[in-house]
C-alpha cells in the first residue's frame, strides 16, 4: 500500500503545477475566457508541447502511457487553476472513447492528432429527458448505404461548439431506455445536417446544443454493444473530475483560511472567532474525506471489474458532491459579500464546484446508484 507518486509522476505534477501557477492567474484566465472559443488555443498548444494531451494514451499513438493516477495529477492542478480548456471533453472523454471503443484505424488517425493538439473532440450524450442516464437515448442511427445517418437532438455537449469531431450516442434498436441497442458514432462537426448552438456554461466553460438531421456518421465500436465502453470512459471521467474538484476545493479551503486570518471585523481577525474556526475545521475534514474518495476512484478506475469500478466512481461522486457543496457554501458564507463578486476568484471556484456536482449525475443520483447496486464494502 502506497500513496506516493513515483519519480515520473512527481515530474509531471511539478511541471503541470508550474504551468498553472505561471500561466493561469485570475486575470490571465479571464483573458482566455474572452477569446472566441471561450478558451486559449495557445494554452492548448502548450499542453500539447508539454505532453499533457498525451497523458492517457499509448506511446505508439504519441502518448505518455499514463493511467488514472497521471490523469488525476493533471486534473487536480487544473482544478486549482480553474483551467477552461477542453481537456475533459477531448482527452478524457473523446480520447477515452476512441481508445476503448475505436478501431485501430480510428485510433491511429485520431489519437496522434489529439495528442498533438490538432483535434478537439466532444462527447454528445445528454438529451432533453435523459437526465443522467447514459442508456437513455432517443437519437436514432439508421443505415444509409454503406454508412450511417443520425437524427436527433443532443444537449449540453461539453465544448461541443469548438470540437472538430463529435462522438454521439444513438440508438440502433430497442426502446429509449434499453441498455441494448446503443451505438457510438463519429461525426465530423462540419458534416451537412449538423447544427450547433454554442454557449457558455455557468462556470465559464463552453457547451452546445447539437441537432442531427440525417447527418452522416461512422461507427465507433460495434453498434448495440458499445455501452460498456462508454460507461467505462464515464467512470474514468468521474474519477478525473473528482480529482479536479480536489484542486477546486483545496483552493477554496486554503483561501478561506487565509482570508479568515487577515480579514478584520469588530477589531479582530475573523479567524479568531471560535465559531468560525470550528466551521473551517469541518470544511477541512470534508476536504480530506473528498480527497480520500478521489484517490479511491482514481485507483479503482483502472479496474476491469465493471461493478466495483462503477461503485467506486459513484461513491466518490457522492462524497465529492456533498463535500463540494458544503465547502463551497461555507467558503462563500465565511468570506461574506466579497465572495459574491465576479472580480474575486472564490466565486468562480464555487461555480465550477457546483457544475462538477451536476456533471454525470449529482450526489443524490449516485447515492441512489450505490444503494441500488451494492455496498462499497462488498
Amino acid at each position, binding site marked *: 500500500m502506497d500513496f506516493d507518486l513515483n519519480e515520473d509522476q512527481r515530474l509531471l505534477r511539478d511541471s503541470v503545477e508550474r504551468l498553472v501557477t505561471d500561466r493561469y492567474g485570475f486575470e490571465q484566465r479571464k483573458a482566455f475566457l474572452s477569446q472566441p472559443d471561450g478558451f486559449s488555443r495557445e494554452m492548448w498548444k502548450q499542453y500539447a508541447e508539454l505532453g499533457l494531451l498525451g497523458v492517457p494514451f499509448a506511446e505508439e499513438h504519441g502518448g505518455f502511457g499514463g493511467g488514472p493516477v497521471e490523469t488525476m495529477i493533471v486534473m487536480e492542478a487544473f482544478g486549482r487553476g480553474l483551467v477552461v480548456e477542453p481537456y475533459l471533453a477531448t482527452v478524457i472523454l473523446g480520447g477515452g472513447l476512441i481508445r476503448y471503443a475505436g478501431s485501430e484505424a480510428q485510433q491511429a488517425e485520431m489519437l496522434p492528432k489529439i495528442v498533438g493538439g490538432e483535434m478537439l473532440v466532444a462527447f454528445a450524450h*445528454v438529451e*432533453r*429527458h435523459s*437526465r*443522467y*442516464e447514459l442508456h*437513455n437515448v432517443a437519437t436514432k442511427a439508421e443505415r444509409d448505404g454503406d454508412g450511417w445517418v443520425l437524427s436527433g437532438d443532443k*444537449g*449540453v455537449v461539453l465544448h461541443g461548439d469548438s470540437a472538430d469531431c463529435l462522438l454521439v450516442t444513438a440508438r440502433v434498436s430497442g426502446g429509449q*431506455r434499453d441498455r441494448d441497442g446503443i451505438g457510438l458514432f463519429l461525426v465530423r462537426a462540419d458534416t451537412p445536417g449538423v447544427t450547433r*448552438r454554442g*454557449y*457558455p*456554461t*455557468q462556470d*465559464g466553460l463552453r*457547451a452546445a*446544443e447539437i441537432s442531427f438531421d440525417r447527418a452522416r456518421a461512422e461507427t465507433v465500436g460495434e453498434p448495440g454493444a458499445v455501452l460498456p465502453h462508454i460507461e467505462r470512459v464515464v467512470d474514468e471521467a468521474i474519477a478525473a473530475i473528482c480529482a479536479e474538484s480536489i484542486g477546486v476545493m483545496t483552493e477554496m479551503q486554503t483561501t478561506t483560511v487565509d482570508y479568515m486570518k487577515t*480579514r*478584520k*471585523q*469588530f477589531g479582530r481577525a475573523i479567524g479568531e*472567532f471560535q*465559531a*468560525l474556526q470550528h466551521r473551517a475545521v469541518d470544511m477541512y475534514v470534508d476536504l480530506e474525506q473528498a480527497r480520500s474518495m478521489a484517490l479511491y476512484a482514481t485507483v479503482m478506475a483502472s479496474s476491469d471489474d465493471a461493478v466495483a469500478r462503477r461503485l467506486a466512481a459513484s461513491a466518490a461522486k457522492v462524497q465529492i458532491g456533498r463535500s463540494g*457543496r458544503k465547502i463551497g*457554501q461555507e467558503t*462563500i*458564507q465565511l468570506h*461574506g*459579500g466579497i*465572495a*459574491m*463578486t*465576479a*472580480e474575486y476568484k472564490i*466565486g*468562480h471556484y*464555487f*461555480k465550477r464546484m*457546483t*457544475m462538477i456536482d*451536476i456533471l454525470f449525475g*449529482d450526489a*443524490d443520483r449516485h447515492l*441512489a446508484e450505490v444503494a441500488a447496486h451494492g455496498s462499497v464494502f462488498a
Partner: protein
Amino acid sequence: MDLNFTPEEVAFRDEVRHFFRTEIPADIRAKHLGGEHATREEMVQTQRTMNANGYAVPHWPREWGGKDWTSVQLYLYQDEMQLAGVPHPLPFNVSMVGPVIAQFGNEAQKKRFLPRAANIDDWWCQGFSEPGAGSDLASLRTTARREGDTYVVNGQKTWTTLAQHADWLFCLVRTDMAAKKQEGISFILIDMKTKGITVRPIRTIDGGAEVNEVFLDEVVVPAENLVGQENKGWDYAKFLLGNERTGIARVGVSKARLARIRELASLERMGDIPLIEDRAFREKLAGVEIELKALEMTQLRVVAAERGQASGKPNPASSILKLKGSVLQQATNELLMEVVGPYAMPYVPEDDREGSNEPPIGPDYAAEAAPEYFNWRKISIYGGSNEIQRNIVAKAILGF
C-alpha cells in the same frame, strides 16, 4: 387558541389577494415567480398601482399613506404579495428611508420626500455598507465635514443595490471624527445627481449587476438634508434595521417557489417516471416543506405576539426568522437545480433573454436555476449575516 383567521381577516386576505392578482399584470408576476428580476419599469408600474390603491406603504403613519393595519393584516398583505409573485415595493423607499423620515425627519423633509418615496417618484438607494466593514457596520469611514450650510461628503459605499436607477441616496456618514465607533455617525440624504458621485456596478457571480460601489468625492450636500440630529444616525440606522421583523423570513416567497418546483418536477423525467414521482425527490421536497410549514407557524406566533405592540423595536425572534428563512430559501435553490438537472449548466445572461426570439436552451424554466442558487447565497450574508443573527439570539434570548 385558534389558527384560523377571523372572518374579518379572511375578508381582508381575499381583498388583497384579489387586488394583487387582478391589478398587477400577470406577466410581471409570472416572470418574478420564475426567478427573473423585475425591470425598473415593472417595479415602478407595480408600486404606483399599489400606491394608487393604498397598498404601497400600509405600515407608515396614517398621515403619510399608512393604514393602521394589525400585525396579522400586515402579514397577510405580505404573504399574499409573495404568493402572487408581486415584486415588493422598493424596500429602500418603503421599508427603510420612509419610516426613518416619518419617525425622525422634520416636517419639511416629510412633505418633500414621503409622498414621492411612496409613489417611487424618487428611487432611493442605501449607503450603509463600506468596503472592509462587512457586518461591522459601525466601523464606517465615509466622512461629512460641515462647511457653512452644507456637508461635504467623502468616502465610498458598497453593495448599494440598484444604485444605477437611484435618484437619492440615504447614507450613514461620520460627522464627528473624534467620537467612538457608534457615536459621531449621522444619517443624511444625498441627491444622486450631485457632482462628485460615481456609481460603478459590481458584477456578481450569478452574472448580474444589481449592486454597485458608490464613490463620494467632495460631494456637497445641503445641511437641511440631515435627518434628525447630528451624530445620532446610528440610532436611526438601528431603528431602520429593526423595522423589518417578520417579512424577513420570506415564507410566502419560499411557498410559491416550492409550488413551482412541484409543478416543474412533474414536467421533468427521472427514467420512466416524472421526477415528481421519484420517492427520494419527493422526500427531499417534503422535508423542506415541513421545515417551511414550521417556520410559517413560527412567524404567525411572532405576528400574533406583536399585535398591538409598537413597531421599530427590534424583536430578537426576527433573528430566528432570518436564520431559518434564509436557509429554507436557499434549500429551494438546490431543489430547483435538481429539477432542471443538466440544463442547470447553460449560462444565458438575463439581458440576452430579454426580448430575444431565440428559443431557450433546454426548458424555458432552466436558465434561472443556477444563477439564483449563486445569487441567493447572499441571503444568509446581507442584512446581518446568519453569524450575527446567532450572536443576537445568544445574547438577547439565551442571555449569554
